[in-house]
């Protein structure tokens, strides 16, 4: 697969993943662009891999976590209240916004582990491959993140989800 074909096929899922990871579409766009630029320079090697997408996703994850470290003092401004002055009568939008805000405040690797699990649907072993750590560490990341986010982890809640 040549690089142009890969980008045509993968830019949307990559950007979706990056947006969830950063909770900032514009930052996600910037990070993805940097990653794709670097991937373009090394595509001769990456393109020969069995799963080039997994490799680029790993690059992207690493870039986000390092980006977040590099830019840790620069925070996106909070969403304006302008479109919230009337309370959402269903409550679903407000609640979802709260979840996303809390998600974005998790430590980078915990957040990445959670997004890889619940958005990308990867196994602990696959997540470990992306993050460059052991599966046990992944489970610790996810456990801590779930605790911080107050995700219901009772057996009854977990058994029936996917």
């Amino acid at each position, binding site marked *: 697969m040549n690089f142009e074909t890969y*980008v045509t096929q993968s830019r949307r899922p990559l950007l979706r993943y990056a947006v969830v990871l950063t909770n900032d579409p514009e930052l996600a766009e910037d990070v993805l662009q940097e990653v794709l630029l670097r991937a373009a320079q090394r595509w001769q090697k990456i393109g020969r891999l069995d799963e080039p997408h997994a490799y680029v996703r790993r690059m992207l994850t690493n870039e986000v976590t390092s980006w977040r470290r590099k830019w840790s003092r620069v925070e996106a401004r909070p969403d304006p209240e302008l479109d919230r002055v009337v309370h959402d009568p269903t409550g679903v939008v407000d609640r*979802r916004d709260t979840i996303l805000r809390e998600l974005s405040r998790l430590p980078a690797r915990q957040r990445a582990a959670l997004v890889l699990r619940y958005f990308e649907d990867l196994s602990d072993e696959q997540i470990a491959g992306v993050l460059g750590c052991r599966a046990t560490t992944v489970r610790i990341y996810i456990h801590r993140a779930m605790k*911080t986010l107050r995700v219901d982890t009772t057996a009854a809640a977990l058994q029936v989800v996917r």
Partner: protein
Amino acid sequence: MITETELREAMEHSAARADQLIEQRESAASQPQLIDLQVPSDRAWAVRRRSWLPLAAAAAVAVVAGGGLMLAVRPTHDSSATPPAPAASAAPQRKVAAPRTDVAITNLATIPGNSSYSLETGMETISPPMGGIQVMALPATRFDPTRQLTDPQPVSVAGARGYAGHALIYLIDPDDPQQASKAGAPRNTVAWPAGDGTWLVMQNFMAGGPDFTDVPVATLVHDAEQLGVQATPAPLRSGYRVRWLPAGLTLTGVDGSVGDPGVGLMLTGGRKWISIEANPTAAVGLPMRDRASATQQIAGYSVTVTGTGYDHATLQRVLDSLDFSRLHGPQTGWWTLDQAVN
């Protein structure tokens, strides 16, 4: 407490912003002179100016883009623009007489197991302990399946005559542009009567983005029959009472789980609102930094009062007024909703 399903749904919703971004970029690519101007005026404060690639690199990115992806690189976060000032105002200092509740005083229905409920604008929403679906319980006066479902077809649910059709998430009115624009695509919806004039309405409540996969009607009917919904109203009570509130607020929402005294209360007055959440201390989340709030550990619970239109002192006063004296007592001694806010 949030569920895994809500977490997935929130991520899916977040990801949908990428699709919007790509569409914006593709549109902007056809009008390159407008790229830096396409920000709604009410979000002008959020614009972050970008440094642009040198020409040579831009050519490389144009290849990367493969159809108008992105031309900008590392952003420099512009702090010169100022966000709008919060709508703080002095809170009236008197307590207002009843009635201030417009939610049902009791649950309409409960589902055995680890379910949570939300009462708001006259509708009860129940999240059963299974992923992706949600049940709404509505009195017959508020729901007519032959009118509110598109193309309603009769189905049998646990021996009851119900209907299957399509509706927007949360039965949002498709003619309401403000809400309908957030609702995504219509989805399969099954409704069946549960006695006492209560209608139960089940649908997939995951976000309706481009990758949205609906739940087939047969699966909804199967799940509905597994739920064992009890339509007998269960008394809804709060483990704490609010002894002081600013004037003009009405209780418009309640969130909780059956048997849990730490209910969440939403009180609304025009554009202002106050939310009170009480969660076991062991499950404390992070405070929301972009809204005024007051938090305190009380009787083994972390209690947070959040609001819009009120300053911190007012929210702190609400927090200080909470009465937790019955929290650890028997459930029958907890406050009814009417008592809890009056």
